[in-house]
């Protein structure tokens, strides 16, 4: 049985092996694209609110940093026996509220069963405070498309956003889109 390295580097085998590897790479990239599309197409859609966003972020990169209303939850919502630890993976049970935005109703250490209308979102504990838990969902970056109205904002105006998130049946979540919520309060005087 020839050893692995000799088998791989056999000169006559190089071209078919390269073709195989390149095909695998192309399929992988298409798979990532497919997963992204499928998550939006087949996922459960929820709406989350964010804290006001600073359009200055766009000057430094193509994305804005989002901070969700569910990024910090009261410690009462913790539903496991052991106390929460930093960097622990958790499952957040979300239920739709009156204005169709979702709020957290419980944070679990293992995947809970979701009732009708509820969804489970995967997250990680960032900080454990005395009365609250800081959470991260890896949805905190939004790559702003060129056509978005966010790009046209003048610096200095800060808006809370309504973010449409799509959660696939297999647990992957992605931002499906962002709606701007125009500021209803007058700008604070400086």
């Amino acid at each position: 049985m020839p050893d692995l390295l000799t088998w791989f580097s056999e000169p006559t085998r190089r071209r078919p092996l390269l073709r195989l590897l390149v095909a695998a790479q192309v399929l992988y990239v298409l798979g990532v694209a497919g997963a992204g599309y499928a998550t939006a197409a087949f996922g459960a859609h929820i709406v989350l609110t964010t804290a006001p966003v600073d359009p200055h972020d766009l000057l430094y990169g193509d994305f804005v940093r989002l901070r969700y209303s569910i990024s910090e939850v009261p410690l009462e919502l913790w539903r496991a026996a052991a106390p929460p630890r930093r960097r622990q993976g958790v499952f957040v049970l979300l239920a739709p509220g009156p204005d169709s935005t979702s709020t957290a109703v419980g944070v679990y250490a293992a995947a809970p069963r979701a009732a009708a209308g509820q969804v489970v979102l995967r997250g990680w504990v960032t900080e454990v405070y005395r009365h609250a838990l800081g959470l991260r969902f890896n949805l905190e970056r939004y790559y702003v498309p060129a056509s978005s109205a966010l790009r046209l904002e003048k610096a200095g105006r800060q808006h809370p956003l309504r973010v449409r998130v799509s959660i696939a049946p297999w647990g992957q979540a992605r931002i499906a889109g962002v709606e701007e919520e125009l500021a209803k309060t007058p700008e604070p005087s400086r």
Partner: protein
Amino acid sequence: MSRKFLETEGPAWVADGLISEEQRLKLLARYPPEASAGGLLPVLGSVLVGLSGLSLVAANWQALPEALRLALLLGSLLAAYAAGAYFLRRGNPDLGHGLIGLGLLLFGASIVLTSQLYQLVGYDASGLLAWVVAGVALSYVYGSRLLVLLTVLIGAAVQTYCVEALGSFSYATGVLVAAGLGYYWWRRPDVVGSTVLAAGLLWQAGLLIIVLHAKITWFFVPAMAVYAAGDWQANRAGGRALQGPPLAAAYLFMFGLATFGETDTYANVLRPPLLSYLAALGAVLAVSVTGKRMRGRLASLPDWLLLLPGFYLPGGLPLAVATLVVLYAHAGSVLARADRDQDAEQLTVGAVLFVAATAVAYFKLTWAFLDKSLFFLLGGSLLLGLSWYLRRRNARRMGDSVVSTAEEQPSRR
């Protein structure tokens, strides 16, 4: 032999009667002019080209429609690989391997940019793991040093992203690089590749220590495991090259201890539990010694002197004395070994280490109470005197060996 050297010196040799004109022309014909780029130039070239393509497209990225973006990514990927294969068939291995390396970089870029396109942020590095797998596979297929170097860099980059952005260590990436490229190194050890592989593995080991919030001295257990692997390598140069980065790290740490040894203030980051640390390090030492004995390289055992855990000693005089003794002993062992092997390069290294140890000793002894200008004067003359003495001694040793081999020549004929 460099052709340029031949061209410049040739006429002088003919004039001096060393060679005839005909011989000079024959020598010139034997070494035709060709541009030989080192193995690192294609690496830098393909990295820079990849980056330039990335930044150009990225600047206008968000304006392009989705399908066009995917098409651009996959198209450039296929083009790079196709071009690489074409040039390899044509007999330009450097350019061919460079283009395949570019294709590998474009694969990574495709994964990242496609994820961003669909607002997918990874939960772990599993998305980028495919990049490392592709790198290892391509290294195996082509046996190109450039691809091996690129894969080590990619592994280090993916691991850094995983630790920085996701806060966890990707054991899969570590195992892939260590086992996949380690096996490659075992079969085909070359000096540059060994050094880069060792540096890449040490980088990932450092990241592991950071993520585990372990005491930083635990770093030396995986570092010396890399060293021990070098001991088992049959190819001596490749094995020694792999050991370079771990030894450099151990030396710098010991040097830092000697110069700044205030271990009591840093005790909480420096002192792991004594028994477990000694047990782990001892196990690695056993593996290393067994390898050395098998390959007949026990002479390099004093390298391990640098790993003596002096940081368990209380700071101040005991630590200063202990570390200085170690530094001198190590420098002395390098000098003794170079003496025996008549290795001029090792003699220089040993001399430098010896002078460095003396510099530290002098610094620690006199900094506190000597007038500064007198300190520098005495220190400078001490170093100059020492280096002159060592150089003279080395030259005499090498001169003796040359004379003795020259004397042997007539008797051999």
